[in-house]
């Protein structure tokens, strides 16, 4: 509930602004729904009020924690009233405490008086204190913790519970009896909690206001597409994974449309006749043959350190598109060839990619494509036939080992297509230990895949 009932709408607007500040996308229509919904449900039951807000404003599970964190900041129950000393103690005892109070140090005396007289902090006091505590320096929602502690210290309220104990000890030394002491403890503790809660809420609310004024800057997702793989930061990987899922969805639609509406699909006479029997043989429905059989992929990827990001995203994309492919076998190599398809059989692509890359730790290996290809040809040649597109993903930096171009040529003859994904631009081919100029003429096509956009385009080509 809002602090004042009449200002629910106003508070709601601030709350939505706070959500946006924390990175939740809330549209105008959704805020309107929220206003209608809360008006309909009323604010009498807090949990129902919260459900109404959440269902109208939060549309994905991952945003729920943000909502749950911000909600109490804007719609607190209001402080429970502080208990006055006279509620718990008899007039005699209060008199006794008063006398004892005079003998305490100034600081403790001030604290005790505040707790006893049930005087909540004023907004002005709180505002000053949060400013002194360094509100200006807060950048993230997580800064709330230190800011709260700092504000408590500014208000001389830090370590409240311990100091309550200290107070009680002194009071007991001053001759307060045990029963009264217990009452005092209860009273002081509950009042101390109210004060701490008041500070916590105020800090959270001012922090949210502040963060809203300077919204978090996010890297535009589109820009990420064009960033070279090797310059991507780990913090951007979450955003990138979402991008990959989105790109995969787009590629899937395109691939399936191509499959469905593509030109050159021949009429299937037998099925057409059968389907049109019910129209008295008049061919209203034309049935066409499947345009072609779905492709099979065999992926051979170099998982040495420099290649990891590219390989990760390639596998992610291809395995997101599994429904458009008849079969995919994948292999990883550095100095020998290893099949990694089983990992994808029972895990979702994200987990499987992580698993595979973990199981082959980066390090100093002697990259040897020639030997790896030799092993592949000996053990796994059965997964290359004339329906198979073989994808070699690597930088062809072979440590001056034999390049075994004969094996590449052999694969090329056997497969439907042999394509090479290389993150290096052609200008670097042939420099140092790069064998790319030897391989390039033997394959159907070389794609330069230095960033996500190029990779996506190259993967899309695979489905043509």
């Amino acid at each position, binding site marked *: 509930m809002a602090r004042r009932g009449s200002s629910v709408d106003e508070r709601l607007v601030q709350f939505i602004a706070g959500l946006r500040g924390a990175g939740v*996308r809330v*549209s105008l*229509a*959704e805020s309107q*729904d929220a206003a*209608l*919904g809360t008006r*309909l*449900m009323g604010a009498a039951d807090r*949990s*129902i009020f919260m*459900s*109404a807000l*959440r*269902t*109208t404003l*939060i*549309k*994905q*599970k991952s945003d*729920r924690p943000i909502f749950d964190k911000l909600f109490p900041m804007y719609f607190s129950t209001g402080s429970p009233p502080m208990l006055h000393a006279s509620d718990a103690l008899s007039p005699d005892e209060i008199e006794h405490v008063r006398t004892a109070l005079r003998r305490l140090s100034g600081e403790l005396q001030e604290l005790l008086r505040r707790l006893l007289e049930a005087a909540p902090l004023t907004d002005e006091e709180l505002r000053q204190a949060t400013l002194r505590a360094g509100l200006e320096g807060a950048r993230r929602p997580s800064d709330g913790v230190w800011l709260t502690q700092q504000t408590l210290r500014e208000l001389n309220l830090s370590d409240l519970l311990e100091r309550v104990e200290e107070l009680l000890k002194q009071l007991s030394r001053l001759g307060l009896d045990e029963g009264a002491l217990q009452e005092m403890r209860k009273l002081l503790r509950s009042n101390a909690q109210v004060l701490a809660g008041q500070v916590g809420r105020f800090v959270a609310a001012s922090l949210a206001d502040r963060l809203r004024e300077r919204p978090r800057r996010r890297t535009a997702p589109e820009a990420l597409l064009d960033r070279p793989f090797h310059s991507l930061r780990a913090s951007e990987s979450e955003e990138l994974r*979402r991008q990959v*899922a*989105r790109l995969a*969805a*787009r590629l899937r*639609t395109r691939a*399936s449309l191509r499959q469905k509406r593509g030109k050159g699909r021949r009429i299937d006479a037998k099925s057409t006749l059968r389907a049109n029997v*019910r*129209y*008295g043989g*008049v061919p*209203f429905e034309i049935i066409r043959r499947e345009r072609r059989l779905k492709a099979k992929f065999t992926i051979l990827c170099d998982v040495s350190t420099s290649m990891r990001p590219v390989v990760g995203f390639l596998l992610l994309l291809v395995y997101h598109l599994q*429904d458009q492919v008849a079969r995919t076998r994948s292999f990883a190599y550095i100095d020998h060839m290893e099949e990694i398809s089983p990992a994808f059989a*029972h895990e979702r692509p994200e987990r499987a990619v992580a698993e595979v890359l973990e199981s082959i730790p980066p390090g100093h290996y002697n990259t040897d494509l020639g030997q790896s290809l030799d092993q592949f040809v000996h053990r796994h040649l059965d997964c290359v036939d004339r329906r198979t597109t073989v994808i070699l993903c690597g930088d062809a930096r072979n440590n001056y080992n034999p390049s075994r171009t004969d094996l590449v040529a052999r694969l090329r003859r056997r497969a439907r297509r042999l394509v090479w994904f290389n993150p290096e631009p052609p200008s670097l081919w042939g420099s140092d230990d790069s064998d790319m100029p030897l391989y390039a003429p033997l394959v159907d096509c070389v794609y330069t895949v230095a960033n996500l956009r190029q990779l996506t385009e190259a993967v899309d080509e695979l489905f043509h």
Partner: protein
Amino acid sequence: MDSQVAVKQGLRKAQYIATDEIATVLYLAEHLGKPVLAEGPAGVGKTELSKAWAAAAGRELIRLQCYEGLDETKALYEWEYAKQMLYTQLLRDKLDDLLGDAASLAEAADRIASQEDVFFSLRFLLARPLLKAILSPEPVLLLIDEIDRADAEFEAFLLEVLSDFQVSVPELGTLRATHLPLVLLTSNNTRELSEALKRRCLYLYIDYPSIENELDIVRLRVPDLNLKLAREAVEFVQRLRRLDLHKSPGVSETLDWARSLVLLNARSIDSRTLDATLSVLLKHERDIQRAQLGLRRETPGPSHSAETLQMPDDQEPDNGEEGVVRG
């Protein structure tokens, strides 16, 4: 009484135990006229909710099951050429009567044109679930199940229908809904839905129920199972959910299991009963093995926390009581 409490009671009467959140969302959906998008793990009762909601609201349930490749003709309507042709054949004599005395070709064509409505009418329209929901003279509840399985193109099309509940049929013109249907979409979250669709819906995330709620559900749906055994069963399932399984058992599996326990006349959940029935709860061989492993590691004793279930135990399990789950 007209509030989320009434909704909750209505659902309960329809054998569905709803949380306050679910009741609130459904109540809002009824009053704001918005579709509800329910997400959550498989088997938590999303589809079940639609049946209970329909019963509680006294509406007919129309279900559209989504799958890959679902298109408008399967979801909205199909034109029945065959029926149309049959009618044309049968009405030929009547047509002769009508046209026999026409003086010119133009006059005959005009006369046919004036009868056009007969051939382009709802009579020849085969309504699929979406159109059925729109045309229904009674208020209905439309369940669009597993929307995440349909293609993105279909999602865009659905968006258009859901926003104003009208469709245009080229042969007939625009058809508008007489009553706004209640709409429940479910998704197992196998892919991200479009922002636009989410924005238009009220969002409801249904998680696995708490122990108390699940026990209530079991008591309501499988009343033959005695309270002690029901509690043991629910506690066991809740512990399974905390294991790292490929597919955690949903509420529907709990209910199936509870029913099997009744059928087998089980007195307690011991290792023999478990071995015989674990496959009702877990649908992957690997999960079953994993669960058995986790159970064997359980320390014999009164503790039931999932931690003991997962924690490797140095002690060899007592052979005689291997894998026994204590209630």
